[in-house]
């Protein structure tokens, strides 16, 4: 497979075209906006945290195939996870897309593995991580906008 086919795998194209968990989460108790000034991508991540659990999560916004698919697959992966598990997934995902060796306690990435091709495209790492940074900003209760820059 070429690098390009590695990057634009069918699953990514599918989630890019028809993102899951897309829209406003009405009963969210946390949210944040993420912005990539390089390409103008803007997303908002809504989270409903119950105790220690990500009970529900949705997002809205416009972006490239990579950032939209990443947000879509992220929301599917995080639903029902504990906050500690979410943070572990973020670290593992970050290592994956930046081409780092996974640590010893790396959790199963499941569908998130589809983003492994991103590491060959350094200029696209920010597209893949935008939704994750935004999710973490929402949890940390940081108002305002997180930027990739």
């Amino acid at each position: 497979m070429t690098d390009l086919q590695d990057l634009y795998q069918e699953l990514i194209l599918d989630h890019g075209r028809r993102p899951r968990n897309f829209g406003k989460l009405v009963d969210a108790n946390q949210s944040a906006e993420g912005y990539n000034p390089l390409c103008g991508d803007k997303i908002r991540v809504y989270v409903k945290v119950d105790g220690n659990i990500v009970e529900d999560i949705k997002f809205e916004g416009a972006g490239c195939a990579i950032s939209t698919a990443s947000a879509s697959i992220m929301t599917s992966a995080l639903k029902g996870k504990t906050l500690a598990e979410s943070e572990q997934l973020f670290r593992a995902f970050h290592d994956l897309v930046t081409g780092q060796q996974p640590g010893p306690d790396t959790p199963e990435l499941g569908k998130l593995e589809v983003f492994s091709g991103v590491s060959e495209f350094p200029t696209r790492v920010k597209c893949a991580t935008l939704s994750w940074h935004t999710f973490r900003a929402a949890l940390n209760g940081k108002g305002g906008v997180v930027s990739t820059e």
Partner: protein
Amino acid sequence: MKAIGKEVSSEATGKAAQFDVNRYRQDFPILNQLAYGKPLVYLDNAATSQKPQTVIDALMHYYATDNSNIHRGVHLLSERATNQYEEAREKVRRFINAGEKREIIFVRGTTEALNLVAQSYGHANVNPGDEVLITALEHHSNIVPWQIVCEEKGARLRVAPINDDGEVLIDKFAALINDRTRFVSIAHVSNALGTINPVREMIDLAHRRNIPVMIDGAQAAPHTCIDVQKLDCDFYAFSGHKVYGPTGIGILYGKAALLERMPPYQGGGDMIASVSFDKTTYNSLPYKFEAGTPNIAGTIGLGAAIDYVSEIGLDRIAAYEHELLLYGTEALSEIPGLRLIGTAKQKAGVLSFVLSNVHPHDVGTILDREGVAIRTGHHCAMPLMERFGVPATSRASLALYNTKEEIDVLVAGIHKVREMFAL
């Protein structure tokens, strides 16, 4: 297909026909390389152009043989460096047909020139309740410096609107000029769309009320002959790196009478005649606005770039690029789902487009792997993107060394995007 540009005169077509692009390509060593195993197709010239060997040699030669500070040494090297620096000023003067050498101020680039005028002229002349007029086509560098002045002074920034082709609505522009207008600052050529503004007409409209006009010529200098006296603009700026010169050097032209009355922009060495702790007397033009050791190598490199384009002839370059633009416009218009953004009748070599619902960033990545370098994003013109209802566009921009074959590679690359995204 929408007609772009006026019909090329037979004379211009003749000029383009004689244009030996393959010979000129040899002058640019960077073009002779592969990108991901494919011949590099560089179509990001509106961001920065590549440099001919003569410019690279001028920089090397300066550092290898003449490097020294200017205007202060009594020694041989300083004399040589000073002479070359001032020769470059004369080359710029001729290039834009300014009346006097002292009207040419060396700056870092167009952005610094705009900030200089906003902070010096703007700060001294814009008062509460006044207005500064720009257009909806402007680059952020011709928006933000004026916003800063307007905010500080309690003045208002007015924006002349454009139509769906990306042309300034001249009637609306004229109607926005009023007794409160203190300054007008407009792009000669739009960086995001390629629209050539009718600047002469716009300057006349402002001058009827004695309002000075600044022209942002960053995108015009590589593509059009500039005559600041014919335009009668009060200020004009362009960047060296977009006209085949080095980065970090640009010029501000200003009418001497205006520059004389303006307060300095930055204080420091070279911009003074004498300094005591009680009072400083400023240097004469242009040095009043050139504080500190300038980009000497860059200035000499810019001189070499001006020599290069002047030798080929800007009218010939413009005619050739126009032919490429028409070819590219037709080829891109035939691609299903592709929408050109910016279809002004008067256009310079920019092909800005969106492709169905594929994000420009994805288009850019796929083209990159085909060896094709384009720009994707908002092109530092976010209000303009909003006007067209798109977050970003893909932009291919032309230079004198581009070919029809390269446009064919671009088109094939776009078809590859369509294939990958199953359009």
